[in-house]
């Protein structure tokens, strides 16, 4: 970070940052929030538009029920109370990508309130309150480059105008850039689990603005609030906040005032720049949208939505640890997405011994992934492959040594376990007479060790096991080797 050491830590330590986050999440409905147009990403400019989302005269909004359900599902997953009656308001401002000259949003009666996300912070676990979750429509996009007329004009693509968004506003209860990062990570994880958004920051389906102020530790009053916009990754949020906190502390330390304003983050420079001050701030002139009836999500509808609520990451992790005896770390990896956890559990359930699946994931898969810096989604061996290997090992068809070899092979070629196994099919040597023959050869070659064993030093048996396995290139059935060795060595 550009400014990490600008201010002595003991000075910084005298101040307490107060951070609140506003996250916009695009909901994965097939059609827009107030019209029937498709929400698909990447369509030719201005092809997914109609009189409603173009803001033509006389066009009227009709609320998409699915958008309400998705937003309510997210709200419930975040522990919010969904209001029985909420309402839509107009947020009035002029901007070329805003077709009606107002955005339909929710203001004094949001869809849901009073939620919380539990995060891990330096001192342990901590709850960050969620003030509200409300529905609103997205604006279009101004395109400044890439067109014949770009030198003199800005082009507009209104495909995105009217895409449903859920805005999730946190309480100002985040105390550090790291906590902000953690809050966003947990929030994204929960939303992904509900399946109502893909939270793809590159495509803009998750956007975040941060409000940050600093105050002397122990002070009751909040400092002047700065809104940081235009941050397009969680990492950059952390950096932008760190920069902004130092900037504000520096200002206060040198006797200046922090100006209440909106600032833009420039990731390349690692700095924030003033965009507009409070005096220039918009007066959005919110008022209830007379084109829309109050939104009623009654108890019956809420119950229906609640039924779609999946097991959430926290609960899932606790259960994986309890049920499969895996570590919390591995439970965390396996719950990276809902589908991965589902695959794992399906694999575990389908295997003869679920614990063995969990053990293999932990002992064989994770290490290899880590060594190659792969995420579990990138693993060549799928959960189905792990289940297959577990069953083969359970049946004694392959030894643990063979299993390791097959895993190495799969990681080397990028194939799943089944493909590697089908090709290599290392048959275990389970023919008793063949194994006996090998044992006899080994005993003949090592008469001294045979003597020792027969004199009562039975620990040399391990030596013979090793020699037999070596002679069979590891393919001899270990159980049979043990049994036959006992018989032969006893004489």
């Amino acid at each position, binding site marked *: 970070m550009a400014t990490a050491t600008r201010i002595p830590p003991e000075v910084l330590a005298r101040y307490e940052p107060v951070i609140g986050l506003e996250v916009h999440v695009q909901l994965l409905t097939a059609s827009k929030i107030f019209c029937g147009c498709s929400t698909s990403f990447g369509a030719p400019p201005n092809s997914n538009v109609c009189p409603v989302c173009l803001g033509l*005269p006389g066009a009227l909004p009709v*609320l998409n029920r699915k958008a309400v359900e998705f937003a309510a599902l997210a709200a419930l997953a975040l522990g919010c109370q969904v209001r029985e009656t909420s309402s839509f308001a*107009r947020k009035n401002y002029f901007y070329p990508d805003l077709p009606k000259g107002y955005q339909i949003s929710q203001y004094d009666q949001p869809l849901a309130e009073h939620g919380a996300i539990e995060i891990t912070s330096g001192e342990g676990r901590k709850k960050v309150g969620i003030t509200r979750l409300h529905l609103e429509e997205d604006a279009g996009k101004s395109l400044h480059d890439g067109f014949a007329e770009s030198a003199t004009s800005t082009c507009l693509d209104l495909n995105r105008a009217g895409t449903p968004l859920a805005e999730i506003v946190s309480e100002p209860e985040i105390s550090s850039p790291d906590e902000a990062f953690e809050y966003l990570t947990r929030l994204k994880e929960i939303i992904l689990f509900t399946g109502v958004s893909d939270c793809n920051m590159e495509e803009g389906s998750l956007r975040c603005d941060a409000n940050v102020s600093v105050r002397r530790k122990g002070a009751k009053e909040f400092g002047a609030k700065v809104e940081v916009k235009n941050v397009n990754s969680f990492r950059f949020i952390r950096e932008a906040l760190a920069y902004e906190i130092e900037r504000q502390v520096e200002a206060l330390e040198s006797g200046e005032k922090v100006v209440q304003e909106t600032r833009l983050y420039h990731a390349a420079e690692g700095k924030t720049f003033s965009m507009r001050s409070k005096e220039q701030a918009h007066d959005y002139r919110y008022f209830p949208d007379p084109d829309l009836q109050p939104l009623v999500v009654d108890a019956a509808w809420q119950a229906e939505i609640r039924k779609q609520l999946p097991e959430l990451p926290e609960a899932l992790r606790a259960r994986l640890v309890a049920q499969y005896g895996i570590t919390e770390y591995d439970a965390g990896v396996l719950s990276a997405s809902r589908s991965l956890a589902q695959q794992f559990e399906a694999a575990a359930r389908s295997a003869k011994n679920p614990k063995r699946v969990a053990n293999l994931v932990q002992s064989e898969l994770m290490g290899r992934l880590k060594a190659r810096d792969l995420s579990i989604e990138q693993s060549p061996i799928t959960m189905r492959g792990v289940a297959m290997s577990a069953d083969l090992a359970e049946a004694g068809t392959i030894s643990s040594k063979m299993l390791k070899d097959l895993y190495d092979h799969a990681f080397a070629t990028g194939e799943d376990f089944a493909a590697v196994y089908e090709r290599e099919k290392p048959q275990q040597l389970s023919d008793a007479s063949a194994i006996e023959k090998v044992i006899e050869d080994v005993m003949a070659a090592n008469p001294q060790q045979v003597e020792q064993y027969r004199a009562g030093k039975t620990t040399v048996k391990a030596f013979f096991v090793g020699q037999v396995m070596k002679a069979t290139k590891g393919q001899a059935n270990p159980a049979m080797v043990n049994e036959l060795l006992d018989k032969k060595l006893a004489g």
Partner: protein
Amino acid sequence: MDPTVLTVESTRVAIQEKQFSATALVEALHARIERDDTHAWLTHPPERALAQAAAIDKLADKGGPLPPLAGVPIGIKDVILTRGLRTTAGSKVLQHFFPPYDATAVARLEAAGAIVMGKTNCDEFAMGSSNENSAYGVVKNPHDKARVPGGSSGGSAAAVANGTAVAALGSDTGGSIRQPAAFCGIVGLMPSYGRVSRYGLIAFASSLDRIGPMTRSVKDAALILQHIAGHDPLDSTCANVPVPDYAAEIGKPVKGLKVGVPKEYFAEGLDDDVRASVEAATEKIHQLGCEVVPISLPHTKYAIPTYYVLATAEASSNLARYDGVRYGFRIKDAKTLTEMYRRTRDEGFGYEVKRRIMLGTYVLSAGYYDAYYLKAQRVRTLLSRDFDAAFAKVDAIVTPTTPTAAFKLGEKAENPLAMYLADIYTVTGNLAGVPAIAVPCGKTKTGLPIGLQIFARRFDEPTLLRLGHAYEHARGAF
């Protein structure tokens, strides 16, 4: 064929019986429109009307029954969208706007056989009470061309009155159907809020705007309403309430109906001729067997300020989309975005529209919202309760439609407050959501039409139409 006396029914019957063809009627009316000296029409290319007329004539040739509004030539107020037919809202800002879709009401009329003759003149964005705010010139009152036709649906009223249309659609936000109907001596019906879809109506004040028929008789109003009323999935504020058979309803007797006369509507400012005429009409209603009782709507005096706070607030937001970005008028050679917005809107909008946008912006501004917008919403609730209380006792309320008959062109143009007071008896109905109808009830000593206004409960258009129809017949011709 005398186009000045045709009604919905007589038009259909005449075409059915081959007294004249729909095409001949369209051609005759088109010729009249070309000669029209009241400037009731803004856009009237014959193609769409002739195509529909040909389709109706084809049906008539086959001899089968014609659709209910077959061949009825209708004028569409220029704030109501017509696909491919220029729609300006009486504003320069939409000078060259050709809508890609039809308003629901227009589509339904055509589906019932009606013929869209063209677009009628109106006050810009329906803001006005005299039709003097049209960017395309004033409309003259067919009864006295030195006088206003009323507004904002002045073109629609004049077209029905001067025989260039059999019926017209108007829109009513504070009296814009009823007041010009009264000034032009025709019937104007403002349906209940939510009765007729607003989809395709260029919004002025969304919580007050209604589309309604302007006709030569109450029965015609009922027949038109029949086809434009009803649920529309494209308008969330359009109620899913069954549509009664209005033609059957108006035939029912009115004897025994309780009719209220609110004292607040007969106070200071009411012209003597209008008072006498409305009182005579009330007596006629009494003679029909209705029980006429005095009532009070105590918050009436707050209606005008309440209306101008709420209507302008909504308008300031509804008109934000006319920014020169996507369609409509855009100033050339602007250097910056702000300059483009500012000059486009400055030159695109007329004076009254700008006045209302500024008023509305002001009442919604931080620090003023509670004192104006919120307070006006509370008064609106009180005004609604006035009507609720009255309708607990009576079935209908009769009042004058306007304090005076048509005033002179230019008379109030420089005095907005006096102009706003022309809506004093009509805005209450918009604020309360109830339906109302203006029915001609006589003339002033100088021969200007006077309109009786009747209110009924929300969605009780049957009672409204029944009483209006009974009165109209009892009254007889002037």
